[in-house]
């Protein structure tokens, strides 16, 4: 594990250069350039705000657009890191067949690219918070930690997924679809407090309520999005009890995912 991290440090420059290449290629011949990066969360925020005005989602004293934007930021970062990560190995066929370097660089590059877009998201968020007169507290220092944890969650999927995708392209087709559905199982449109309220307080599902809640927070993104919003708006440090089930899931799955990737890696050039 330590050797792996060391190895990656040695290749950090390559990761940065490849990420820069991805961004340069994507936006170079686009008139609006990097503005496209924030279009998706902004549009979704507007749509959800519109929907909310019909169905009524309780967002407490935090303005709904800001709340939903703060949920979309880690969500889109996770979703796109994972789905682009899954396709990243296949997308670099030419390189894989010619030159050797650790192949996990490709999913990492996909994620690094998304990290930049996340950074741009923060500029928009700062604008929104200023508009609503919200002042962040020192708890925003938790954000880097939360983002780092989100990266581990995304890697769990992209390492395994990208290796499978080399053999069976079904993975690259299926995963984006599955992930976009998964958004509804994560507290993006609605806040986690609402789920807690329904299941833990009102026991809406009867005897199953507590179990259902645990299953719900097994999804690492439930804890991540809640912690993200908490650090930004409620000056809270991350709530371990909400994060724990997802963390356990990742602690178990990430090593498995990484080992599978490394085993499959040796034959990428033959199969791809």
């Amino acid at each position: 594990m330590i050797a792996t991290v060391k190895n990656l440090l040695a290749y950090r420059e390559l990761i940065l250069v490849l990420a820069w290449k991805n961004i340069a290629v994507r936006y170079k011949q686009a008139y609006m350039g990097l503005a496209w990066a924030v279009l998706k969360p902004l549009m979704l925020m507007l749509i959800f705000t519109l929907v909310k005005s019909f169905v009524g989602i309780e967002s407490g004293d935090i303005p709904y657009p800001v709340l939903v934007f703060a949920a979309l930021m880690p969500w889109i970062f996770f979703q796109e890191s994972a789905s682009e990560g899954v396709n990243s190995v296949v997308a670099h066929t030419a390189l894989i067949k010619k030159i050797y370097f650790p192949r996990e660089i490709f999913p990492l590059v996909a994620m690094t690219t998304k990290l930049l877009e996340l950074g741009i998201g923060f500029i928009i968020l700062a604008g929104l918070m200023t508009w609503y007169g919200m002042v962040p507290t020192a708890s925003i220092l938790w954000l880097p930690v939360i983002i780092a944890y989100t990266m581990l969650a995304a890697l769990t999927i992209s390492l395994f997924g990208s290796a499978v995708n080399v053999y069976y392209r079904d993975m690259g087709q299926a995963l984006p679809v599955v992930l976009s559905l998964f958004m509804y199982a994560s507290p993006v449109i609605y806040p986690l407090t609402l789920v807690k309220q329904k299941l833990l307080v009102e026991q809406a599902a009867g005897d199953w309520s507590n179990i259902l809640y645990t299953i719900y927070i097994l999804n690492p993104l439930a804890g991540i999005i809640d912690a993200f919003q908490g650090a930004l708006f409620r000056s809270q440090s991350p709530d371990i009890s909400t994060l724990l089930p997802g963390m356990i899931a990742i602690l178990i799955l990430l090593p498995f995912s990484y080992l599978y990737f490394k085993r499959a890696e040796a034959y990428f050039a033959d199969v791809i």
Partner: protein
Amino acid sequence: MAVIEVKNLTKEYQLGALTSLKDNILNLNRRIQGKPTQERKRFKALDDVSFSIEKGEVVGIIGHNGAGKSTLLKHLAKITTPTSGSVNVTGTVAPLIEVGAGFVPDLTGRENIYLNCSIMGLTRKQTAAKIDEIIEFAELEEFIDTPIKRYSSGMAVRLGFSVATSIDADILIVDEVLAVGDLSFQRKSIARMENLIKEKGKTVLIVGHNIRQLERICPRMLLLRHGQLAMDGDSGQVSKSFFDESTQKNSKGLIHDSKLQPATDTEEMEVRSIDVNSVQKVDGISIIPLFSDLIIHINILCHTDINNAEINIGLHNAEMIFVGKASTSLLKNAINLSKGEHTLAVTIQNISLSPGPYGIGLGIYDWARRPIWSGSNLQPISVEISPEYVSKLPIGTLGYFSASWDFTRQKQT
């Protein structure tokens, strides 16, 4: 110290496409019924190959298409993993497996240099120190800030070669890239390779089909045949054996394909037969001893009068290169072929061609040099060396001069 150590390297590939869900279900069904399942065929691209290369050695790898040359390079560059056996490489490897492998069309030349260098393991600083030299060698000063997609293919290849040879790797792996760009750039790139080899003492592996070029650069050669290491040694010997192998294959082809059929035919005449005088025939092929005369009899039937005709007759080797021609245009008198049958005897004196099979080519033209009848490989002959000359005559030539030698001892002054 061996920098490359290959032991019993074997690589198998599965033929055919990846098994799909459908195949899996069918196989499952067969397994339930106790029938043999359908397995994909396996193919040995490399078969028990062992060799080692010392630091500073320059080794050429030759072999026919599909002999496993590129698969071998892929193993040395760590791109793929052996099925069995081991490959140990000490030091950094710069693969030129395909020049410009990592080029991105949308980025400019300069950006691509940074990208390619960092793929090959250089830091930004190291690249910045080399970039001017890279651009200069590639002769792209003017275009370096233009996206690569606007480059001509020669420009991209030049840039790729320049980048790959500028990286200070211990081992260079080259796959048929010496012949990049136009002639002047080719000369420049060969000079650069030679500089890398001689001045900087790099270990270099070159795969190629241009054996003569390889022979010049590499003192040692590996010959691969059907995935096996057929020969490993002095490049002169290895390339000779490879040439002999190819010549044999070519010769068989020449004799097999030989037939009396024109390539151009205006139907104003027919060539009915071409015969060669020879004392000896083996499998229907006339044997002509080296330095003897070759007499060819040609039987022609003209359907019209052909005045002022020109007849060329020549011999070509298995590579379809004519080694000599004789022509009636050098005669003082014009040749007039009247309607009817003619027999023509041509004597070619003192055949001094390198031993091997040759084909006869014939061309007949009218007064305006319009071809009436022409064809090549109409009849095979085989020039053979008599025992008295074997091992005396030099090899590696298309033919021999009859020369007179005069040695005079110079008086001491």
